[in-house]
């Protein structure tokens, strides 16, 4: 009867101990003014100091072998650290992509030399990496990638561009999915992942400002960049396979439902004294959705730990998780009254309104509204994800 694999996960005691360590660390940092919680902190919180501190705590590259600077911990332990950082709205953006995606890709498909060269700095929290997947005409449809690799001796020459590369203007490296040959019948051939040193003068990085006015994303243009042989990941032509097998990692993580967590916490705080039953219903509904999403996401972490590749389950969780993130915003839009200069909202207690709680909540709401459109688009739009789920259910 069960269509998907979602086993119940009980976190090991070591993971729960680790959770308390992370909470103490975060409380200290926050008390010292090390960070202010923000919505969507894994995108907007680019903070090299903080990343270095996390590296020193052993909380980057946690599951990698120790010989590459990793800490040989379990996927579930890593999961707990990630969810605590995100729930607190901590600035993890600098190292996020390296830790989640680029490190694991190198670990899985890279050469020994690549591992030794790149992984230790990633784990220290000092090496930051950008994603190079989307292009102007290859958004949800990655097989349409056109950034072109031309053979040049033992190496390659790269021309073309990538879009939406988060943090590329502050990262040292990018791994880009490029076209090294024809697509073939299944449209998935001829793609190759290469490592690009973003400091190369043949690379031009142009900012793409967001509607919030922030600069996180970039257009990255390759003006005949030389890619030496040792910067290719695995075999040329294996790129599609390499990126799609990471999709479950990319899509099932707690960053797909915790982006608006600081706003949710603030919302509960500022309505602390409301006796309004139907407001409580809305808050309870959000909490119950959150609890379920977390269990599902944990289940996927468990499957990943056992070496499975739960792509369909991950699509399911990302679709629901990102919709949840936006529901939090919608409830907050009904409660808070933006623009009243921190003077209240409906159901907001006077006691809290009088202190800074309400102003902070309004700031978080503004962040959530302006970041919201991205939640259900980045990493595969919800429409794409539903197609994947339908396929997984045998509908096409």
């Amino acid at each position, binding site marked *: 009867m069960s269509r*998907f694999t979602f086993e*119940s996960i009980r976190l090991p005691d070591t993971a729960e101990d680790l959770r308390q360590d992370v909470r103490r660390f975060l409380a200290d940092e926050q008390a010292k003014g090390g960070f202010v919680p923000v919505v969507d902190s894994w995108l907007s919180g680019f903070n090299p100091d903080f990343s270095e501190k996390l590296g020193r705590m052993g909380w980057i590259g946690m599951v990698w072998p120790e010989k590459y600077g990793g800490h040989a911990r379990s996927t579930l332990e890593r999961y707990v650290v990630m969810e605590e950082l995100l729930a607190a709205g901590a600035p993890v953006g600098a190292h996020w992509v390296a830790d989640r995606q680029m490190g694991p890709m190198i670990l899985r498909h890279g050469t020994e030399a690549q591992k030794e060269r790149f992984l230790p700095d990633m784990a220290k929290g000092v090496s930051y990496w950008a994603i190079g997947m989307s292009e102007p005409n290859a958004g949800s449809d990655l097989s349409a990638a056109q950034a072109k690799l031309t053979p040049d001796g033992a190496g390659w020459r790269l021309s073309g561009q990538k879009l939406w590369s988060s943090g590329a203007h502050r990262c040292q490296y990018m791994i880009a999915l490029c076209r090294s040959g024809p697509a073939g019948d299944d449209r998935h051939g001829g793609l190759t992942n290469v490592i690009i040193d973003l400091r190369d003068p043949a690379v031009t990085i142009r900012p793409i400002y967001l509607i919030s006015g922030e600069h996180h994303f970039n257009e990255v243009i390759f003006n005949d960049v030389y890619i030496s042989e040792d910067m290719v990941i695995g075999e040329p032509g294996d790129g599609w396979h390499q990126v799609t097998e990471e999709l479950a990692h990319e899509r099932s993580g707690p960053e797909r439902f915790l982006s608006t967590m600081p706003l949710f916490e603030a919302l509960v*705080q500022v309505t602390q004294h409301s006796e309004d039953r139907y407001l409580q219903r809305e808050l*309870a509904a959000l*909490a119950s959705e959150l*609890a379920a999403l977390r269990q599902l996401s944990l289940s996927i972490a468990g499957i990943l730990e056992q070496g499975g590749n739960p792509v369909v389950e991950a699509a399911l969780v990302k*679709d629901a998780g990102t919709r949840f993130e936006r529901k939090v915003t919608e409830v907050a839009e009904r409660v808070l009254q933006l623009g009243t200069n921190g003077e209240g909202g409906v159901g907001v207690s006077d006691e809290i309104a009088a202190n800074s709680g309400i102003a902070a909540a309004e700031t978080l709401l503004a962040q959530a509204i302006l970041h919201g459109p991205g939640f259900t688009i980045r990493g595969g739009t919800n429409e794409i994800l539903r197609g994947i789920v*339908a396929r997984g259910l045998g*509908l096409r």
Partner: protein
Amino acid sequence: MSTTVRQMIVETAHRVFRDACDMETVAQAAKGTWPKTLWQALAGNGFTTLDDDGLTWEDALALLQVAGYYAVPVPLAESILASRLLTAAGLSIPEGVLTVGVTPASKPQVEHTASGTRLSGRWTQVAWARQADHVVFLAFDGDQPVITCVDQSSIQVTSGTNLAGEPRDTVVLEGALTGDVGGLPSPWSQDSVRSFAALTRVMLSAGALERILDMTLQYAGERKQFGRPIGKFQAVQAQIAEMAIEVAAVRAIANLALAATEASNDTASSTEGAALGRAEWTIALGKVRLAQAIHVSTTHAHQVHGAMGFTEEYPMHHLTRRLWAWRQEFGNDTAWAPSVVTELREHGVWRAVTGV
């Protein structure tokens, strides 16, 4: 937790229900026929009451997910809950069909008289009271909540049904003779009983939601419009994908509630109160989560099925009508919200969700 034993119970239960609880049986039951064979099969497999050497409370809850999948038309959940309450109160479990009266209209009292212990009061929503050999009641001895069991012969039943046609009777007792009376074990409260009753609805619903997803998938693959199976249309795919996440979410939270319930039983007495509180909170979450899942899933299931799906002939309504009723029974989402929110306020959302 003995996962293997429970797995075995669940597999056996699937077999029993497949054999003895097809949709025709459910349809006949909806018309008032007592499915004797089904009840006997369940009782014969030891599924209807808890047992020190057999079915545990947690096994039974897992079993209810299977029962929900098959739209079980007998008071299985009530029988299990009845035996749970009797055991907890130190009373023995009688033979025969059992049900529970745990939603008293006011504060029904037991009286200790010269002629024995007598019970008066009124209980609504007593499932299959008309059919039960014994009804286990939640009542009060002064202010103290107690459990006691009354024979069919001593009760007055006014018949009623829920949206699915399942018997939900009102029982009135006026000084009826009752057997032994037992108090709730510490740290249980009257609210714990209500929580456990609600938990049965979460479990049943988890199974029923799974079933309507299966039926909808099958229908979408077979039914053609405009020359192709409707499951090829993006709108239908989106509806089914949404159902899938709702089903998965309810199952996840049902399992969470099951684990928390289990933990509250396995706990040293010093932390019992906290563990029970955690279990009750998780059940409240489950009942709240259920409301959305039922709304989304039944809407999409019927929409995909088109007109066929809301005919009596097509059996999906045995599931969807139960879900609509179960959403409400023992408190809907609005009723359970304060239990959820109190914890959020006290500890913060994230700490509440992660178990502090």
